[in-house]
């Protein structure tokens, strides 16, 4: 892109035959031709830059859009939803005048290229989405997926990602309260770094990304614009990694959490003084995205003088300024009379703020550089009217064979000794082992409102000190289940997150998702995606939890090998009084252990089949959403009325994993009896959904079992909290010291 002569709109009209590097910028030929058709001429270099980033897969959702519509079409009636899909993040009413905004996003590709910065800026981006809604961020969560735990590259990627999340989030003063860490060879070369954040505000403080009111000023504030992250959106996030291409390192952005912390404080101060008409953060596609989205969501047009953008590198071309993904920047629309006060607040926090343009009464987005008009577009065509693909999809041929390879037929432990040995192998396997080496690198205490944090079933934050009102969040997504059956796999992800929220005593309200898949150009992957979205939309409808927003990450594949389809689902819940929360740990000897729900022989995709047999086949556990709802209601009632002292959801690893975790966290053992009608192996390792284990004080036993009985939830007494071992009567005894050593040594040994 030559800078002499300046490629203005006029110049573009006069020189229709100039070749532009649309292919290098990631546009397909027919997409470029559409741009020409829309403009009625060739685009200028600056316009091409804008269209190319905004029409990238990452920004336009062009492959996923036709499927994602179901989240709206099937959305359940919900009084709680205040702002739905399409804004920076969804907003939910949690009562007492409070609104909560939350969202999960991916930063997968950058985190593979440069783990520390990729993960750090992932946190930064999601936090800015939350601030842009008008909320104070109160917590972050991080669902992570890595290649095999013992693969040498995992030792490069994981510590960098964890340090990056900690380095950025800890500096912002946001407690990290949840998430997951999962290892699987399918993520080798394509780690998933999803970042979620929650923010709290009063209803009247909700802000939206729109520029309205002709004459209002457009203020860019935060960090100076540099050359980092240019083309990140189009090139990095929208193409498959290919060994033959040159290194993509320069396209990854570099974060400065200190700057972001100042941005949070000064933005919230400006909100408090009602100085802001509309606001948008600068994330993927930088200024291209912020200006075109603000303008297209508002009532008028916008005029921007690019010369006024504060630069870190004065040699940047206008195209580069428009594409730069330099972090820690935001764009606000402010009435002229309030501009001085806005700038004053920025100055108080030492944040650079510059008026770069204004809202016009036209309907065009016009951008000027050195006096010439280099962009003149209808902002809607950039921000919203990107291409939409009906990608072909087809159930892969291998799906039948995969499902026929039944995990229930795998050899099972034949003796108590084998059973004991397999329990130890399970709880010490990388996926089931303690992740405290990782989570202890995150600050979970800051802000002084953390009620529950990992390894609890959900993270919980108090939002009102007087009333005790709180919110809970859990994220889950089992790629192995989804590989076996994407429709039900996605539903199981939702069911697990929903259950995890309810287990701690909170009522599930709404959903955000991060859909991580391979290349949409592969019909098999596209089928997985279509099935997962259909499954999730159906399940959200049935459970009454609307999807409020989320993110799609495609092209998570290297060559032909795609990752397991990995829909990560975040469920947000509300609890009227956090004093009523239920933690995971067994706290008192003598309390009775009850298993809630039905246990069947379900081993497809199970942790046991992976750890003991390195096997993936069969069908995932059956989904029964009505049962999930009933279980949740029982758990919430039991928490609220003090009928249970500990509760733990049963998911990967089954009952034995849950009991071991509760025992180790509380430092109290458990004596278990295999219930009638079940064999010890199925009892311990089955991953049937819709189950939880609870510890019930003896004084509450009758009340609790009566409640379950009256409402038709199967409840089975399986033992008692007791001693300093996990004992399965007639089978084996595992001392807590031995379990602890096995459970806690694995991750440090692999990664420290």
């Amino acid at each position, binding site marked *: 892109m030559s800078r002499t002569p300046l490629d203005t709109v006029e110049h573009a009209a006069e020189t229709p035959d100039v070749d532009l590097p649309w292919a290098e910028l990631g546009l397909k030929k027919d997409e470029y031709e559409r741009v020409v058709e829309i403009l009625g001429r060739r685009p200028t270099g600056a316009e091409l830059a804008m269209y190319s980033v905004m029409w990238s897969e990452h920004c336009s959702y062009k492959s996923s859009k036709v499927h994602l519509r179901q989240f709206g079409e099937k959305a359940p009636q919900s009084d709680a939803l205040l702002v739905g899909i399409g804004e920076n993040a969804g907003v939910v009413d949690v009562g007492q005048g409070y609104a909560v905004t939350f969202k999960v996003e991916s930063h997968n590709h950058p985190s593979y290229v440069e783990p520390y910065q990729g993960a750090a800026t992932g946190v930064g981006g999601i936090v800015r989405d939350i601030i842009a809604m008008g909320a104070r961020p109160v917590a972050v969560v991080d669902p992570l997926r890595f290649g095999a735990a013992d693969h040498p590259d995992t030792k490069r990627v994981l510590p960098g990602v964890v340090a990056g999340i900690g380095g950025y989030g800890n500096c912002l003063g946001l407690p990290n309260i949840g998430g997951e860490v999962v290892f699987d060879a399918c993520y080798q070369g394509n780690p998933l770094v999803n970042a979620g954040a929650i923010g709290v505000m009063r209803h009247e403080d909700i802000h939206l990304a729109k520029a309205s009111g002709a004459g209002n000023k457009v203020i860019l504030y935060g960090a100076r614009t540099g050359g980092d992250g240019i083309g990140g959106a189009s090139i990095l996030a929208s193409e498959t990694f290919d060994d033959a291409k040159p290194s993509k390192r320069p396209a990854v952005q570099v974060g400065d959490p200190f700057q972001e912390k100042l941005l949070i404080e000064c933005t919230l101060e400006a909100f408090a003084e009602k100085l802001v008409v509309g606001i948008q953060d600068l994330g993927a596609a930088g200024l291209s995205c912020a200006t075109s989205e603000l303008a297209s969501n508002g009532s008028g047009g916008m005029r921007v003088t690019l010369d006024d953008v504060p630069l870190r590198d004065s040699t940047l071309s206008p195209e580069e300024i428009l594409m730069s993904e330099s972090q820690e920047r935001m764009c606000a629309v402010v009435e002229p009379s309030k501009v001085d006060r806005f700038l004053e607040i920025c100055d108080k926090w030492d944040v650079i703020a510059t008026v770069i343009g204004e809202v016009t009464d036209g309907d065009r987005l016009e951008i000027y550089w050195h006096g010439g008009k280099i962009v003149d577009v209808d902002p809607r065509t950039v921000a919203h009217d990107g291409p939409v693909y009906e990608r072909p999809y087809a159930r892969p041929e291998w799906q039948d064979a995969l499902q026929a390879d039944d995990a229930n037929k795998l050899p099972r432990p034949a003796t108590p000794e084998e059973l004991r040995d397999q329990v130890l192998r399970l709880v010490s396997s990388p996926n089931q082992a303690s992740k405290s080496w990782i989570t202890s690198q995150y600050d979970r205490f800051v802000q*002084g409102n953390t009620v529950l944090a990992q390894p609890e079933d959900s993270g919980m934050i108090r939002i009102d000190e007087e009333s005790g009102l709180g919110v809970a969040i859990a994220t889950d997504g089992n790629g192995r289940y989804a590989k076996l059956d994407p429709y039900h796999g996605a539903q199981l992800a939702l069911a697990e997150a929903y259950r995890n929220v309810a287990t701690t005593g909170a009522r599930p309200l709404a959903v955000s998702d991060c859909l991580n898949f391979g290349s949409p150009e592969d019909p098999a992957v596209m089928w997985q995606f279509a099935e997962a979205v259909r499954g999730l939309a159906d399940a959200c409808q049935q459970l009454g939890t609307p999807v409020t927003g989320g993110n799609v990450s495609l092209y998570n594949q290297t060559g032909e090998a795609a990752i397991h389809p990995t829909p990560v689902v975040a469920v947000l819940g509300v609890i009227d009084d956090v*004093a009523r929360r239920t933690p995971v740990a067994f706290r008192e000897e003598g309390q009775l252990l009850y298993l809630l729900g039905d246990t069947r022989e379900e081993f497809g995709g199970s942790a046991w089949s992976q750890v003991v047999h390195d096997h993936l086949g069969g069908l995932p556990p059956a989904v029964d959403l009505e049962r999930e709802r009933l279980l949740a209601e029982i758990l919430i009632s039991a928490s609220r009325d003090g009928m249970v002292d500990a509760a733990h959801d049963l998911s990967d690893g089954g009952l034995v994993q849950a009991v071991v975790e509760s025992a180790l966290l509380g430092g109290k053992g458990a004596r278990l009896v295999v219930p009638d009608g079940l064999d010890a192996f199925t009892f311990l390792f089955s991953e049937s959904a819709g189950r939880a284990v609870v510890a019930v004080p003896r004084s509450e036993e009758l009340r609790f079992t009566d409640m379950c009985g009256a409402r038709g939830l199967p409840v089975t007494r399986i033992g008692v909290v007791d001693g300093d071992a996990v004992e399965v009567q007639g089978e084996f005894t595992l001392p807590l010291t031995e379990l602890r050593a096995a459970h806690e040594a694995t991750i440090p040994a692999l990664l420290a």
Partner: protein
Amino acid sequence: MTARIGVVTFPGSLDDRDTRRAIKLAGAEPVALWHKDKDLRQVDAVVLCGGFSYGDYLRAGAIARFSPVMETLIEQAKSGMPVLGICNGFQILTEAHLLPGGMLGNDHLHFICRDQKLRVENASTAWTADYEAGQEIHIPLKNMDGRYVADERTLDMLEAEGRVAFRYVTGGDAAEGHGNPNGSLRDIAGISNEAGNVVGLMPHPEHAVEPLVGSGRTDGLPFFTSILKKLVTA
């Protein structure tokens, strides 16, 4: 009558609101102080809270030490005003030479966040009078640069003068918060100045003041009740 206790907000301070809450819970009046303002607003004592002041660029606490509020604070601390430095606040106090020694990066090179077991070594400072000497308490610890170092002479002097206020409890179960978490010399977690009015420590007492949140313990509350009693009875 109650006491006014200031909490300074630097750019990058993180635990300022938490600290003000802890002061309030103890029954004192929290007063927000701003780094650019030399005026201490007639407070009776000051807490420098945790965080990453000025991004901790250059060196933790090194820039904050030169901010306008510190000019007044250093002067008043020298004439006896009680000052508590928590984590980044401790780092700032050493940079300001109100306390000897300094902090280096943790020996394991990672950020660490855990509920840490400490032993109160000196219960006669302005901030520790509500503890008993030898008492063992759990206080959350969370930092990247928490390794206390000083030369041997300084360490010997601190020991001889009883100015080691807190030590990490070693030798027990790591799951119970035992162990030196960062390689601090002589397991030192916190120290005081000669007069006992200035105390700094790496762990965060403001995160252990309510049974429901944070560590779920209230072992940190005596920091704030100690100072309140001292100021009110003074």
